[in-house]
């Protein structure tokens, strides 16, 4: 088929889903592109760095409004595109299209949520089932995730990764030899890069309370930067109420780009704008205004870009559950959950709706 990427991107900006066959095609083509990327991609400033998005599509639109649209602005996304938010499918679809369309201006790093094990229970799998009726789209994207790079270096000075450092990795060269084309393992350097967290109260590594990766302290950071002749580590992975956090005497920053996380945390978000001279500026923003978001009812009504409705209102394969309720659409042996306390249409509790929407 002839792929019109600009048309796809345009549809997605209107929050219209791409047809399953189109998703399959763009994932195939993007895998080919990513296959030749190293585990450590080197880029130059200026670039705008984005942290966790977690399916908050309307806030991604805010990011483009604030930071500029592709290809006018170079973007580096640090992972966690899916799960938890209501629009993981739209989010990952548009980012994949943008990467395919402007491969040198968009970099996508793998986060801990770009994983089959995690997306099975944190929302993305269920959202795919709901919007497409089968798990094929989930398979296309999770296969694509296996190809995403693990890290990016900006101007040979700033090391960018989703989570953090690993006791098995002392130099950039050690990252390059990892075989990344697989599901994120439970343990080992690849797991550590996407799961680790800094701990300003420590100097060394310690086992992480998350159950994967490590926490690492000041001496680890200093040693890594010194050994690799760089001056800053930039990562995401942890919620920051102010949208960002700077640690270890400005040797490490966390950037977090999902405002009002899960539609209830009330936090700010930010994007990090790195200028040509390497100047770092955190551009802080709030959640997109309420009147620019769909109502819960509208959120359920998704359309394919050819106008065919999907999800609850599609013709085939739908479970016919009412608005606000949740039903598993044939995944895992058809356990339909009757929505408990939040089955009513009147209750606008985005969190309850979110949780029940997905289960």
């Amino acid at each position, binding site marked *: 088929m002839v792929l019109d990427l600009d048309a796809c991107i345009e549809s997605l900006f209107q929050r219209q889903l791409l047809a399953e066959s189109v998703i399959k095609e763009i994932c195939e083509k993007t895998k080919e592109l990513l296959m030749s990327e190293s585990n450590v991609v080197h880029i130059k400033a200026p670039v705008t760095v984005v942290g966790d998005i977690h399916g908050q599509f309307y806030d991604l639109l805010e990011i483009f409004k604030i930071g500029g649209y592709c290809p006018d602005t170079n973007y580096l996304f640090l992972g966690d595109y899916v799960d*938890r938010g209501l629009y993981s499918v739209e989010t990952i679809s548009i980012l994949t299209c943008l990467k395919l369309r402007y491969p040198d201006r968009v970099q996508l790093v793998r986060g*801990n*949520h770009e994983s089959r*094990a*995690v997306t*099975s*229970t*944190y*929302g993305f799998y269920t959202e795919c089932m709901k919007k497409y009726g089968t798990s094929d789209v989930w398979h296309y994207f999770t296969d694509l995730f296996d190809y995403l790079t693990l890290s990016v270096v900006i101007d040979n000075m700033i090391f960018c990764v989703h989570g953090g450092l690993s*006791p*098995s990795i002392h130099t950039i060269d050690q990252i390059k030899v990892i075989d990344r084309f697989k599901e994120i393992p*439970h*343990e080992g350097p690849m797991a550590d890069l996407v*799961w680790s*967290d800094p701990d300003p109260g420590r100097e*060394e*590594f*310690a*086992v*992480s*309370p*998350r*159950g*994967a990766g*490590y926490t690492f302290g000041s001496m680890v950071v200093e040693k890594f930067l010194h050994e690799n002749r760089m001056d800053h580590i930039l990562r995401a*992975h*942890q*919620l920051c109420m102010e949208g960002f956090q700077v640690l270890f005497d400005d040797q490490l920053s966390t950037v977090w780009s999902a405002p009002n*996380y*899960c539609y*209830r*945390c009330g936090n700010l978000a930010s994007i990090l704008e790195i200028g040509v001279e390497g100047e770092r500026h955190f551009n802080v923003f709030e959640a997109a205004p309420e009147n620019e978001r769909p109502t819960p009812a509208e959120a359920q009504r998704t359309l394919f870009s050819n106008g065919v409705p999907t999800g609850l209102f599609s013709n085939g394969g739908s479970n016919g559950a009412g608005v606000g309720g949740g039903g*598993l659409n044939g995944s*895992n*042996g058809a*356990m339909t*959950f*009757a929505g*408990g*306390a939040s089955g009513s249409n009147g209750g606008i509790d985005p*969190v309850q709706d979110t*949780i029940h929407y*997905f*289960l």
Partner: protein
Amino acid sequence: MSDGINHHREGLTTSHHDWTMLQVGKLVENQPIVIIDANSSVEDASEVLLKQGVSSAPIYDSGRKMFVGMFDYSDLMTYILLVLKKMEVPLDDQTMEMRDLIQKTNRSQNVPVKLVSDLSGNDPFCTVLAETKLGGVVNDFGSGIHRVAVMDSQGNMTGVLTQSLTLDYLMRHLSEFPQLQPVMQKGLQQLGLTNIKVLSVTGETQVLEALITMSTHGVSSLAVVNDQGALLGNISMADVQHIMKDLRTSWLWLSCFQFVSKVRLTRGVETGEDQYPVLDVNAKSTFGYTLSKLQATKVHRLWVINDTNHVVGVVSLTDVFKVLGGYIDS
């Protein structure tokens, strides 16, 4: 070293103790005391556990001026099963309190927690004096007692010493106990903690069914596996707290897979950090690494998996103390 243990160099003033000689009173120093009133309802008592972030608390009867037992998630689970009439206890085995409880639940009356105290029979109320040496308590921990109430010589409770608290203390002061180094270096296989048949349920199993299985077999958690037998997650009695929260009893009828999802989603938002979907440790790991992970993640057991993600064993806190207890005499 990447075994997760902080290998500090010893300072000149580090003192070396025999960890078995620690007085238990020292480990519970300054512990905030959480006590449940014997006449509060089961729902209120669960609230206390939830709010205080503990998995058990002693029950005090102000009328009789004494502690009458412990309330923990195991008891709560047994209570829920009784209320739902999912448990049949033969008349001969019913104690007077249990009969009272069953009658009350049959009539759907508000049940005072004193009737639910130690209901599961799993963890009877044990007390020790503050001067008791840790070495003595470790054997109790190794045989399945999860906690002991520490009393002073006047009979006042000074704190509750749990398996978790003890592990945390030992790991934080590891450099003071060089005699523990050899066992830390041992592999799980060497210690016989792999190659154990563990109880599991599929993701499809209803939560209620899983609770009944736990209760029947006297275990506090089950591995949740997919249809290929690979580890998906974990369901444990402590998860019962999520059901009691806001009385979300409808969650009992979810599949374990859905339930595990819900619990994860809520927890991640509260801490701003998502946890790894399964809490496990590779069969090739060392005992020391396993303890570090138990301490860091604050769970009560880690499933032991092989390279294909199949469960080949489990290391619970009880197993940890069984191992440590075995080293005391050698």
